[in-house]
């Protein structure tokens, strides 16, 4: 079981994780949380309390757009998709994080830790 990430760090990275995931395809809330957890081997975990307010905030900012869709099993789900504004936001966000990791590595040398 990986060590849990401090909530403040996790919160800061939540937006980019969601946007990067939705760049591939529209997903609904539970699926977003599940995929992020799987891809990060459980390091990043979203709870309902952290996921949905973040999704609504991104939706309000126009970065995401939500729509209801019925899946083959007949269940209505609210899918979130990246908007053109969201795609535009993702590229500089990636660069920012990359610069952040490089800078942090220089100071903390966490690759060799």
């Amino acid at each position, binding site marked *: 079981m990986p060590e849990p990430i401090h909530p403040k760090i996790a919160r800061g990275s939540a937006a980019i994780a969601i946007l990067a995931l939705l760049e591939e395809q529209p997903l*609904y*809330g*539970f699926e977003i949380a*599940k995929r992020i957890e799987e891809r990060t081997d459980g390091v990043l975990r979203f*709870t*309902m*309390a952290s996921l*949905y*307010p*973040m999704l*609504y*905030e991104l*939706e*309000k900012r126009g970065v995401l757009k939500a729509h209801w869709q019925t899946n083959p099993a007949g*269940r*209505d*789900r*609210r899918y979130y998709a990246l908007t053109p504004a969201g795609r535009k936001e993702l590229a500089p966000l990636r660069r920012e994080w990359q610069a952040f990791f490089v800078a942090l590595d220089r100071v903390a040398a966490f690759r060799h830790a």
Partner: protein
Amino acid sequence: MHDWEEVARRELDDLRLDTRDREEIVSELADHLEDVYERARERGLSELEAFRQCEEQLGEVSQVARRIERSKFKEGAMNHRTKTLWLPGLVTLTMSSVLLMISQLVSEHTGLVPSKLVSSENARALAFYLPWLITLPFSGAAGAYFSRRGGGKRLNTVAAAVFPAIIMLAVLCLIVPIGTFLERNTFIIHHLSYFAIAIAIWAVVPGTALFLGAVPFLPRKIEPS
């Protein structure tokens, strides 16, 4: 089978959202809980263990609610209060005032009121007061409807519906200190029964009539299952 929608709705009942937004969020969170449950069952957990996992998430629903209010609907308490109390209250007040005016005009200028009734002052008052009282539930219903539509909780809905009665009560209550201390008129102090009758006629009875109109629009409390 658990009714997650009912559980989520109960938790989000106090959320300051309009009904449509609330229902959408309720459906989405219920869907999430259902997924958590199903996933736990697929992993081989028993029904009880799967339910426990959902319970952990359930504890977060009220947290979600507060954060949603802050993130999605940053309208501020004032704006929400305006939508659910002040504006609907103003609707009730305007409607009841207009109806009072119409009742007065109708009772004085038409032959609807028998002439022997109009001769007495009290009967003249009753001739417009009673028809007005009958119309008040409609005013209360209008205020309650708008408050509910704006996402008003039970208290706001009731307050918006009985708004004119609250205003009248406040005005009447000001009469005693103003009359006694500012105008140095002790009449009201010596005739408190008049004051009580005025409160009953202009605040309590109309307030009750207004409230009756609001009853169909009051949000229902969901009992825990």
